[in-house]
């Protein structure tokens, strides 16, 4: 880091000396540490979790107007880290390589890599599979760092509870925290939200939210992998890592209704299963969930999420109020067939970039503006009670779940340690069964 500072100061020095037209300005300044610190506005970033999203988030952080440098990278796997580093240096997707100041000495791999990169940074990007989010977030906040972390922020009730506790500490320390529920940073959603707040649709009484799609990637088992390594590679299909797609993806849509409603559900009940995507390579998660969430005032959110190829595809939210309807995908508010507001999509922004633009602008000005962790945790819990409802076939209550202490994390994070779910002799994993699976007696 010392070298990097020197490099930057030299640049400033050159700039100054040309301005002073003569370059007599003095070499002695070069040894004045105090001077260097006062002009060094570098914001140092570390990324934990170098997959597609972590790399994307790093790219966005490095594409902000502020003087941001990526100084350290952490991943469980060396090859994932190398691919990420290469993508950042290649400049195929944007030129940020001059802002990448990661060296061999600041690349860390393994389960404890996060502990080594956090001290090197001012801002930490946390983008590992969500099961790790609570411990990474806790460490970053305890070391006084600002945080950008991806959604969801946990995969089980104990993790949510932890994130809520750490969120309180972050507030006390005035550390900015942004959670990658990017619709909060998307212009069309903000414009709709503002109008719903102003009463354009009255009180929200019900909503429908959807993430129905073909599903995502699968990473086949490789010879020589321990069970832990296999699950870490094919993480989407294991709940301790992913939380099922109702948590990992559909949280976006659940969160929108919570946001617009200004409340969180008190209970959930629903149905689901794995009818089509039921091979062993799909671990233990369901391929569909249909959940009815109830809010304290009796309003209902109906939620559908499905990962089945060749089926009707829709990712959207719509909410009905006493005076009108808001459709988020169409970015339109209407009443009795009459359009009250329609957002001009030509004015849409790039929400993933905007999250970082706003975060780094605040940090550079020394402002404390973002405290997303609490909502991130509560929207995560929304998705988790939904999953527990479909898995058990029972009504799952919010308060009881939050305080249940239920954890699905492994006892130990190590390549030779057993993950919390193990395959049978044929390679199939135990699957939650409604009517049999029980969370509360």
């Amino acid at each position, binding site marked *: 880091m010392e070298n990097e500072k020197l490099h930057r100061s030299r640049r400033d020095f050159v700039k100054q000396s040309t301005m002073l037209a003569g370059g007599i300005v003095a070499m002695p300044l070069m040894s004045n540490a105090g001077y260097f610190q006062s002009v060094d506005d570098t914001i140092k970033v570390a990324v934990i979790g170098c*997959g*597609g*999203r972590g*790399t*994307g*988030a*790093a*790219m966005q952080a490095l594409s902000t107007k502020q003087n941001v440098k990526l100084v350290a990278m952490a991943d469980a796997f060396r090859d994932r880290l190398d691919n*990420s580093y290469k*993508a*950042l240096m290649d400049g*195929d*997707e*944007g030129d940020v390589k001059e802002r990448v100041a990661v060296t061999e000495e600041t690349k860390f791999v393994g389960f404890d890599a996060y502990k080594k990169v956090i001290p090197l940074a001012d801002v930490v990007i946390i983008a590992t599979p969500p099961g790790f989010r609570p411990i990474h977030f806790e460490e970053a906040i305890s070391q006084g760092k600002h945080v950008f972390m991806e959604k969801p922020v946990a995969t089980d009730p104990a993790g949510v509870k932890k994130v809520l506790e750490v969120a309180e500490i972050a507030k006390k320390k005035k550390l900015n925290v942004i959670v990658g529920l*990017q619709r909060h940073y998307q212009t069309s959603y903000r414009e709709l939200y503002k109008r719903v707040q102003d009463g354009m649709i009255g009180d929200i009484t019900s909503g429908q939210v959807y*993430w129905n*799609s*073909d*599903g*995502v*990637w699968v990473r086949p088992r490789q010879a020589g992998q321990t069970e832990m390594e296999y699950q870490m590679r094919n993480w989407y299909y294991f709940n301790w890592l992913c939380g099922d797609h109702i948590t990992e*993806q559909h949280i976006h849509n659940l969160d929108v209704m919570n946001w617009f409603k200004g409340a969180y559900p008190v209970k959930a009940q629903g149905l689901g299963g794995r009818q089509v995507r039921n091979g062993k390579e799909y671990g233990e998660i369901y391929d569909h969930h249909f959940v009815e969430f109830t809010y304290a005032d009796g309003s209902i959110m109906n939620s559908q999420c499905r990962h089945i*190829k*060749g089926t009707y*595809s*829709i*990712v*959207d939210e719509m909410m009905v109020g006493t005076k009108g309807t808001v459709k988020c*995908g*169409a970015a339109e508010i209407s009443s009795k067939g009459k359009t009250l507001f329609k957002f001009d999509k030509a004015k849409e922004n*790039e*929400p*993933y*970039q905007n999250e970082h633009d706003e975060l780094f602008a605040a940090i550079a000005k020394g402002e404390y503006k973002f405290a997303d962790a609490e909502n991130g945790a509560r929207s995560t819990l929304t998705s988790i009670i939904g999953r527990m409802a479909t898995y058990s076939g029972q009504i799952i209550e919010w308060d009881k779940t939050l305080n249940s202490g239920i954890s699905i994390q492994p006892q130990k994070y190590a390549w030779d340690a057993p993950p919390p779910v193990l395959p049978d002799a044929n390679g199939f994993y135990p699957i939650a069964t409604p009517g049999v699976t029980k969370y509360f007696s």
Partner: protein
Amino acid sequence: MVPIRSGSFTIGSPANEDGRDEDEAPQKKVQVSGFWMGEKEVSFGEWDTFFKNMEVPQTKDISVDAVSRPTAQYIDLTWGMGRDDRHPTNSMSQQAALMYCKWLYDKTGVFYRLPTEAEWEYACRAGTQTATPFGNDARSLEAYGYFKGNSEGKFHKTASLKPNGWGLYDMLGNLSEWTLDQYQTDAYAKLPSDAKDPLVAPGSKYPKVVRGGSYLDNAEELRCANRIASSASWNKRDPQIPKSKWWLTDGMFVGFRLVRPGKAPTKAEIEKFFESYLK
């Protein structure tokens, strides 16, 4: 497919054409060899014989070494506009469209590809020199092409409106269509007079040329001569790096149609063609 006879035409637009951009100048005489052209934009019905063909491996990367299928879409990239067999297939990268061509070639032994800019404009003009093949009056467009004024914000089933004089539907409007050319602002300035089958060879990922304008565009974008340059912003909402090689998260207005050269290239030429685009 519709046969398009060889011939010559004037590429580009005159300075007094409404909505004309500098990249459409200078106008040049161009010769085009004969070819067949899809009368419609490629539909979901056609695309799905490839995209949903379970025998073809799905890969993240695109390589000339093997025919492969696009990865699953995380979200519906028709954005609710419809996915009937007759709707035009949309939101794919130029390379994805070319992999469809390679798959077709492997399946049928017949070489199909995207049109060049010159072929596309020649076919769109259908022997006319006006802004659209239906004249210079934007109002006449409504019967022939879907643009902002008549699309209700979405694409429509192919061939729902009237074709141009050579029997080609939706050349202007509905979806903008991929061509083979790398985009250069001064492409025509560099053209020799009477150039035969001109093509700007593939270079960087961006920009490449799409033609025709779409359901999202104003009428003045739906002109035979209009050239639209692709950009990284057509994938701005893809949160992953590297971004999808197959899909455009913000290119819902892009599709393609096929051409088949009148004189089939040799096997070696076909291989060289795919190598130069699918690398």
